[in-house]
Structures are given as structure tokens and as C-alpha cells.
């Protein structure tokens, strides 16, 4: 193999991760950098937007253009970035509270909108940064600080939801398998259109249930089955299997390439405009066209 242009460490910032030692986020941090290096994407062409949460600290620790927004708003900000400059690789990183809780509406609409961004959710089934409350993925009965007698809400199934909402790439990873995670991230980045990856990412401080051991005992790889990832109905079925038997598929549930992206449909972007850098102001011709109705 020829020498790579970038090493994983080229994407690492000088700020040391502040996560608890052993936190699942570390594996994602490594896998993401490795995937970027593998794809040879220059660090300056990567934008990573996050929300608020332990997981959302991610861009602090990366040597890319990192933007941390407010809780739940990584997706809209990333969408704006990408539409302003579709030459960039634009990622969103957030937590299960961040993206499925307060950010749920943006998630839903991003799935149908099909802007070419990659959304990665560090799903630890808990609110980490606020020291342990129930999250939208916490199973019924989970003991947390806001559910000391067990959560009484049915959890969301983000994978099933994303497929239903129209996402064109839907996958799941596990922080206990960084190599596999790297493969998924790479596929997600290469995908044309909105890509979504839910990552089982244990919070070793506040979650005693969804631990590394818990997942290790249950995950299996979709690639090793005969699942057809282009089959919508099969994907939905697979996503909902975890209600049926106690096994958790990881890998790519669904991916279709035949849907045009938002960028391909947009009237400016598909003409090659780049809003971030185009000339400012109006040309004489434009002035004439847009003021005609006032005369």
C-alpha cells in the first residue's frame, strides 16, 4: 500500500479529551480520525458540528473546523455549513439526549431532506453530562436520577425511525469494536446523501445496564448475514428485531444510492454556486430581473 497522505493523529487537537477514562466516546474519537485518514480528507475540509453533552465535546479534541452549538442543534448548523459550501465534508456528532431528545425534530427532517451530511449519535442510553437522567433510548424500568423507580416511557428505536423518516444511509456501530466503527464511519462519509450512524457507546459512570459487556454479549454483524441493505422492508424488520429476540445487529441496515440529494436539487448549488465564497452583491442583470416587479 502506498503511503497515506494523513495520519489519524493529524486530526487530533491539542486539547486532551476530558471524558472519563474508559468512556465509549474514545473509540469513536479514534475511529473517526482513522476513517478520515483512510479517506485522505484534508483536515481543513472537515467541519464537525456538535450539540451539548459529554459526546458533544468531541470537536474540542479534533484538529478540524469544529463548531459546538447548543443542545440539540448540531444538525441545523451542519446543514447550513454544507449548503454554504458543498465542497466540505460535514459531520454532526451528538448524544442520544441531544439528537433524539431535544433535537428530535431536526433529526426527523434531516432524514427526509437528504442533505449530504453524516450524523453520528453516541448513544449511551443516558444523559451523561448532566450526571445521569433517563434518555429517549433508556429502556422501560431503567433507574436514573429522574426515574429512581424505573423509567416508564417506551424508548425510541432510532434506526427504525430514521429509515421510516427517509434517511438514505442508516447504520449502527458499537464503541467496543473500533475497527468496525471505522468501517461504518468510512461508508457513512462516502455515502451520497444523509448518513446516520447510531453508536452503542457505554457511559461507564452513569449507566450500569448498557455496558460494554452487555453489548459484547449481544451484538452481531449485519455484513455477516444475508441482509439486503437496499431493501426498505427488510431494513425496517431488522431494525425492529431487537424487540423480538435479544440480539443486536450492528452494521449497515439500509443504504440507497438512487435518491438525489438536496444539493443536487437545489437551484443554486446544482449550477455550481458556492455561497460561502461567491462574489457579493448584485449584477446589473440581476438588478433588472429582481426589481422589474416594482416598476
Amino acid at each position, binding site marked *: 500500500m502506498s503511503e497515506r497522505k494523513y495520519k489519524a493523529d493529524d486530526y487530533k487537537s491539542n486539547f486532551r479529551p476530558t471524558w472519563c477514562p474508559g468512556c465509549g466516546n474514545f473509540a469513536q474519537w479514534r475511529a473517526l480520525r482513522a476513517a478520515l485518514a483512510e479517506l485522505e480528507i484534508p483536515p481543513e475540509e472537515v467541519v464537525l458540528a456538535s450539540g451539548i453533552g459529554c459526546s458533544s465535546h468531541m*470537536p*474540542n479534541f479534533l484538529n478540524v473546523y469544529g463548531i459546538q*452549538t447548543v443542545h440539540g442543534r448540531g444538525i*441545523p448548523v451542519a446543514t447550513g455549513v454544507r*449548503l454554504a459550501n458543498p465542497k*466540505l465534508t460535514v459531520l454532526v456528532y451528538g448524544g442520544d439526549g441531544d439528537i433524539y431528545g431535544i433535537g428530535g425534530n431536526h433529526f426527523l427532517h434531516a432524514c427526509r431532506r437528504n442533505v449530504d451530511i453524516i450524523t453520528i449519535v453516541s448513544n449511551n442510553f443516558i444523559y451523561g453530562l448532566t450526571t445521569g437522567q433517563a434518555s429517549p433510548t433508556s429502556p422501560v424500568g431503567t433507574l436514573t436520577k429522574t426515574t429512581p423507580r424505573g423509567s416508564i416511557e417506551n424508548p425510541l428505536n432510532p434506526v427504525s425511525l430514521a429509515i421510516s423518516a427517509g434517511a438514505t444511509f442508516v447504520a449502527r456501530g458499537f464503541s467496543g469494536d473500533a475497527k468496525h466503527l471505522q468501517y461504518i464511519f468510512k461508508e457513512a462519509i462516502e455515502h451520497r446523501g444523509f448518513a446516520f450512524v447510531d453508536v452503542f457507546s457505554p457511559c461507564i459512570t452513569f449507566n450500569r445496564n448498557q455496558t460494554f459487556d452487555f453489548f459484547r454479549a449481544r451484538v452481531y454483524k449485519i455484513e455477516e448475514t444475508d441482509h439486503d441493505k437496499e431493501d426498505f422492508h427488510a431494513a425496517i424488520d431488522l431494525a425492529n428485531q431487537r424487540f423480538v429476540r435479544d440480539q443486536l445487529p450492528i452494521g449497515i441496515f439500509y443504504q440507497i444510492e438512487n435518491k438525489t440529494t438536496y444539493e443536487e436539487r437545489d437551484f443554486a448549488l446544482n449550477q455550481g454556486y458556492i455561497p460561502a465564497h461567491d462574489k457579493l452583491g448584485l449584477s446589473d442583470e*440581476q438588478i433588472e430581473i429582481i426589481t422589474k416587479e416594482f416598476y
Partner: protein
Amino acid sequence: MNQDITVRFVGSAGDGLVSLGWLFAKIIKKHNLNLVGFRSYQSVIRGGYNEYQLRFSDEKVYSVGEEADIIVLLNKHVAALHLPRVNDNAKIVYDQDYVDLDELGYTSDKIEKLPIPMKELAKQVSKLSVIKNIIVFGALGHILGLDTELIKEVLEEQFGYKGKEVVEINYKALDLGIEFAKSNNWEKVSKKLKFEKGKQMVITGNEALALGLLTGGLKYYSGYPMTPATSIIHYLTRYLPKLGIIVKQTEDEIAAVGMAVGASYCGARAATGTSGGGFALMTEIVGMAAIQEVPLVIINSMRAGPSTGMATKTEQADLFQAYGASQGDFPKIIIAPYDMEDAFNVGVESLELAEKYQMVVIVLMDLYLSEGIATVRKLNLKHKTKRYGILDKVDDNYLRYKITESGVSPRTLPGTPKGMHFTGSSERNEKGFSIASTLAGLPDTLPIRNAMVEKRARKLEQVAKEIPEPIFEGDKDADITLVSWGSTINIVREARILLEEEGIKSNHLHIKYILPFQKEKVKEILENAKEVLIIEQNFSGQMQQYICMQTAFDIKHHLRRYDGELIVPSQIVEKVKEIVKNE
């Protein structure tokens, strides 16, 4: 104004009042007259009671006027409701086949009834009932002494794209209307306006603002529909492919402002627009953009509140919502444009200030300004804007959030090699890294925090140096100083002319820049005033409170209107007379 004419069309949603008013405005402006118009409507899609009032003159026109010279009643339902609003000396144009004015109580002998079987006449030329509006235009043209050829030119311009036949039908309808008025000996209005063929624009405040934004380099606009801001996105979308910009309707206002921040961070000049309810949802991100130091323009067009309130009515009651938008202490810019030309200028300026100072600019429009129409003669659409503070190349010492004297720090856009940095919503050091986690509260960190707060605050001081002094018109030693903000400027100006006629000398302080605020200058003006009257479209006197906060000057007199309708010049005159008399 020596001579001006006010025409009021009264109809229901569905009577095509918007296009009727617009077309009439175009006819007037084609005669090189000046015009102001406003549609007063309701939050219903069909039916209801709406008015479109237009006032025009060969001199400057200030308000839409109070008494109408001509009132056109478009259906029976509204005719009944309109009675209390009818003034003496009005000519009432109506369709006698459908409306019986006597039965409805229009019995005053101070009014002149001008029945015209508009629907019947319309049938003679077309099956489309809207053609009756053109019949009316013909009749009005006759009594206003307008130039038939100029009217026809407008009809050609408007309907030409529909084909020659359609234009001909309109011509015929026009002629029928003129003929009818003539043959029924409709008397011409007594006021005489000088006119000639003219070429100025007629435009709404929102459109003027949008044109300003485009001239100021707008590349990204996101919004979620909300009256009275919606027409901005409608206008921008109309010309999308030719503009090469992105206009995005989002799932909600949070996404709208979030996307604008993303686009702006990336280098595209970006704005979003809404009204108070949507603005409330955006406020969290106002503070975010401010601490991130990402340029951002947010338009809040105020309507009558609180909450959903009266969505189609005007008010100026979101001042403190804008001032207090988002938690914590940080600088923002707040500008309230006052007329079409000014809205255009603010459109340009807001994007430029936002980028230059990496700040959030809130543009406070109000419904009257957003939706009102007026003729304008000079919008500098060829203004050449330039980029501010963006580095193409950086060295290893690049600090995105460098503490500088001006408060403005160097900035790189995504894509720039070596320019990578972290932009967060937490407090930071000069590199951008968060000082809210492992560095928080450490003795070394406290000065960094202070320096960042102060750096951001310094930007506002810089802006203060750059903005013009408050608008102040009239003699220093007037009997009374009138204070206003936003779209009421011209209503106050008209009141001053009327006061002058009554021998009362007034001057006029108008606040356009709310933040930064020209404290000293305003204070000086107010302290030198004999009496001060502040005029606002709200209940609690928000600008009055705000001025007191900024200057410790407690304005004594106020005129406030909060029923959703426009303040009229005569209200001001009356109030001033009360004050001056009581002295």
C-alpha cells in the same frame, strides 16, 4: 402637503384587494406621483373585512391619511361594517346592483354617492369578475383626471405576459369605466395634482429590506413562514435560480436560525426572518452566535401581541424581547428601520456590520413598515460591499479568538489550511478551547474569562463610533420635542406640519439605533427640550422605558396606541395641543 388624495378600497379576503391595491399604486406611480399605501386585513383566508388605503400627491406623502376622498365599497358585507369609518365629503363608489347604501344607513348629505354597476359592466367584457376592478379604475381615473394612456401602459406592463387579448379586455374595461363616469357626470375631485410620466418604484418595506440584504451580499436566507416576515422569503424565493443563493424554508425557527449560523460560520452572508413568536424560539441561538462570534442577521417584524395576539395587526412591543434575547451578558446590535429606503439601507448595513464585528444584528421591523407600500426613488442597488476580517492564509500562531483592542479577532473559514480551530458555545481561551471543563475556576482561568467578556463588549463600543447620530429634525428651541421609533416616523413628520400650521413649533427625535444607543446625544436633546412627547405603538411605552434606562431621562408625556391600528397625525396634534395648552 398642499394637495393629496386618499383612496380607500374596502372589501373581503378573496376580493383580490392585494393585487387591486398594488395595481392602483402602479397607476399612480406611473404619473410620477408619490404614494403611501397600507392594507388593513384580518387573519382569515376568505371573507372578513379588509381595507386598502392609498394616499398620493405630487409632493412627499407621509401617512396613509385619515379621511378618504374616495371610498370604494367592494361588497355588501363590508359596506355595512364600514359606515362608522365614513368621513364627510367622501365620494362613495359602489355597485348599486348589490349594495343599497340607504338601507345600510349611508344617509348623511355630506357624502357623495357614486353608484356604478361594476359587475354588470364587467360582464360586458369578460367572464372574470375581477375585471370589475379595472372598470372602477377607469371611473376613478376620470374623476382623478389621470392620463388614460399612462393607465393603459401600466395595464400593458401587468398583463402583457398573458397575451394581447387579455390586455385588450383590460383596455376595454378601463374605457367602459371612464365612459360610465363621464356619461353620468361624475364630478372631478377638486384637488389638482401635477403629473407626468414617471419611473420610480413602488415597494413594500419587506421587499426593500430584502433588496438591501441582496445588495449587502446575502447568500443564505432561512426562514419559517410567519406574518409579517413571510413576504421576505416569498420575494427571495421568486428569483432563486437567477440569484445563485440559498433560500431555505425549514422545519421551525430554531432550524432557521441554526442553519443561518452554520452558513455564516462557513462564510456565506446569512440572515433569517420571523416575527415575535418565532423570534422567541430563536433567542437561545442569539446568545450562541454571539459567543461564537459568528455574524448573524435576524429580522423580527413586530405584530400585535402578546403571543398569537392579532397576527395581522401592527405593534411595536418587542423591544425588550430583542434587548433581552438570550441569557447572559453579551453585546448585540439592534436597529429599527423606519421607511422603505431606510429598510433597504439597513438591509445592506446589517450584513456588513454583522461580518465586520462578528456580531448578531437584530433588525426590528414592524408590520406597518413590512407590509406597507410606498414609492421610492433612490435605492443604491449598485452599492459594492466587501468582505471584512477573513484571512485566506494563516501561520502557526493563528488564534481565532485573539484578544484585540477592537475586540474583533481574526477569522478563517472552513477550507482554509492551517486555519482549523474550535468554535464553541462555552467560554474559551484565545485558541477557542473551552474553559468550562477542566480549566474552569482555576486561578489562571479567571482573567481569561474576564478578558473574553470584555473583548466581546468592546466590539459594541467600536460599532458605536461608526453609527450616525440620532435623527433630529426641526428647530432646537421648539415648543415641544416629539420622539418616535420605527415606522411611525412619517406619521410624526406629518403631525409636525399640521402643528406648524397651527402655530406650534415642534422638533423630532427619531431613534433608529437601539443598540448601541447614542446616549449622550439623546440625553442632550431631551434635556434641552421644553416638553417631550413620545409616540409609540404599544401599551407600556417600551421605548420610553428604554430611553429612561439609557439616559435616566424620564419622558413626561406619551401617546400610545395598542389596538393594532395605526397612530394617525391628528391624534398627535391633539395630544400636543393638550400639553402645550396646559403649560
